[in-house]
């Protein structure tokens, strides 16, 4: 990827809501999908720790932001932005607490340990009156036109997706990336070489929580209604999708989850329009096809098929650094 590639992507992203004004919400959700896939891939792809529970940070961010907006009495934009920050903070704190407990487990045990997290969180939120219990919570209304609102959320999500991407690019190219890759390849060896693996694992989990926790508040406001099980702690939809998208694109790479998110979101929207009533069946079939034909993801498949053309994309940051 050269500088002008990024420039074209940037131009496309900025102009997209004006070229396709009818699809602004869908385009905003596209960036959400990118954030979900990228944040899952920190653990699942780069570190080899498959988590099924990351969605709780999304829900926590959503609730914290909405409650803050409801109770702080601040004006809409201040309330939203501060609330999103607080949502990220809350997600980070909770990630630190449960991370230290859960990350003592490895491999399949960790995956199973995280499986129940979203169910527990959904049940707890559904029984707590202060946050609306089972009847959910409605964030304040956007003070303005619907079309203006959609543009606002589009750029809000786009900016956070950009920040997520750039932050991950930055941490993956340094020690942190190398250490979590080492943990993925052989955790015992990493410890034997003196790497404090628990510290890295908790950091990766916390980073993941930060990106999800912040965007959660924005999503709650865009959807306009927070249901504990179907929106906030939606393990069966967003929770599974983030894993699928990362695997589809190619986990363990920076661009893989982005590509996976785009293809997945577009396909899913097409299924809604083309096979209404059968969209879940089509989605299920797509999942089977992904696993059977692209076990390494699209990026992994491309690298196997065109090793020379794709060599550039294969860890280009590292190569450049070494050719000093």
């Amino acid at each position, binding site marked *: 990827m050269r500088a002008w590639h990024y420039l074209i992507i940037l131009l496309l992203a900025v102009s997209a809501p004006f070229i396709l004004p009818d699809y602004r919400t869908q385009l905003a959700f596209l960036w959400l999908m990118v954030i979900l896939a990228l944040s899952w891939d920190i653990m699942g792809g780069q570190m080899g720790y498959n988590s099924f529970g990351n969605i709780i940070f999304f829900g926590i961010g959503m609730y914290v932001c909405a409650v803050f907006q409801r109770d702080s009495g601040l004006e809409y934009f201040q309330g939203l932005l501060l609330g999103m920050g607080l949502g990220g903070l809350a997600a980070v704190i909770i990630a630190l607490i449960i991370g230290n407990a859960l990350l003592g487990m490895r491999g399949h045990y960790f995956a199973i340990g995280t499986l129940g997290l979203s169910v527990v969180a959904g049940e707890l939120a559904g029984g707590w009156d202060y946050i609306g219990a089972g009847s959910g919570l409605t964030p304040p209304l956007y003070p303005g036109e619907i079309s203006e609102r959609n543009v606002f959320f589009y750029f809000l999500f786009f900016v956070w997706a950009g920040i997520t991407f750039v932050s991950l690019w930055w*941490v993956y*190219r*340094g*020690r*942190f990336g*190398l*250490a979590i*890759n*080492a943990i*993925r*390849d*052989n955790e*015992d*060896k*990493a*410890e*034997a*070489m*003196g*790497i*404090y*693996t628990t*510290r*890295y694992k908790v*950091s990766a989990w916390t980073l993941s929580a930060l990106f999800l926790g912040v965007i959660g508040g924005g999503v709650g406001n865009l959807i306009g209604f927070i249901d504990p099980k179907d929106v906030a702690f939606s393990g069966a939809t967003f929770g599974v999708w983030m894993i699928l998208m990362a695997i589809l694109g190619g986990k*363990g790479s920076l661009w893989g989850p982005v590509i996976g998110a785009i293809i997945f979101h577009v396909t899913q929207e097409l299924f809604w329009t083309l096979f209404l009533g059968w969209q879940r069946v089509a989605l299920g079939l797509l999942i089977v096809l992904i696993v059977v034909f692209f076990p390494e993801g699209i990026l992994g498949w491309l690298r196997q098929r065109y090793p020379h053309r794709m060599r550039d994309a294969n*860890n280009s940051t*590292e*190569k450049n*650094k*070494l050719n*000093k």
Partner: protein
Amino acid sequence: MNNELLAVRSVSKAFGGVQANQEISLTIPSGKIIGLIGPNGSGKTTLFNSIVGYHPVDQGSVRFQGKEITKMLVPQIARLGLLRTFQQTRIFSGLSCIGNMQISAPVVRSGLKSLFTKFPIDDMEDIEDILAFVGLHSKRHLLAGQLSFGQQKLLEFAMALIAEPKLLLLDEPTAGINPTLINGLIDRLRVANQELGITLFIIEHNMRVIMNIADHIYCLAHGQLLAEGPPDKIQNNQTVIDAYLGAN
């Protein structure tokens, strides 16, 4: 011995009913090459694991440079300068050889801030030098998983060297290596010991190798320390020969 680097005092470890290590005491003096031999299943690797903190010991104590390390965690012990390599070679297969070296370099280990920093460039020279020393310089950009088994063993050795340990425990360094390369490996072990000042404690089944390079040898059998002494004494020790060949 006044310059003792590692002191193992009556260490025992049992797995269920199997007594893998029984009251083992040994001393590694600084600057030497010490061998550890014994038939299969005699508890050599268990002793290594006990020393580096891989599992808690049932009794006894391990002191490194006079410091009690019996209850410390694996990475803490590694940072003190006591490293081990594995019998089943362990490298980071998804990283390039250089990546494997970078993550093993000691600078990686300083503090929380280093979590998010880049690599200092001057590391690269040491890394390239050591890769050249073990003969992997031309392979440095390859993924470690693409190397042959013998090359992976050399890479693991190189990773241990870049970490600048004071004491290096090597678990069967020549196992699976082409016999013609073994001489080269012996030379490299000697250089590591004499020029880099790394004390070596080596488990080895290849008697020619271990008798050749070790200053002192400990022999285990059935989890107990059977004999110790200089190589020529061990070679002629009847109890050692019986343990290997089976006494009648």
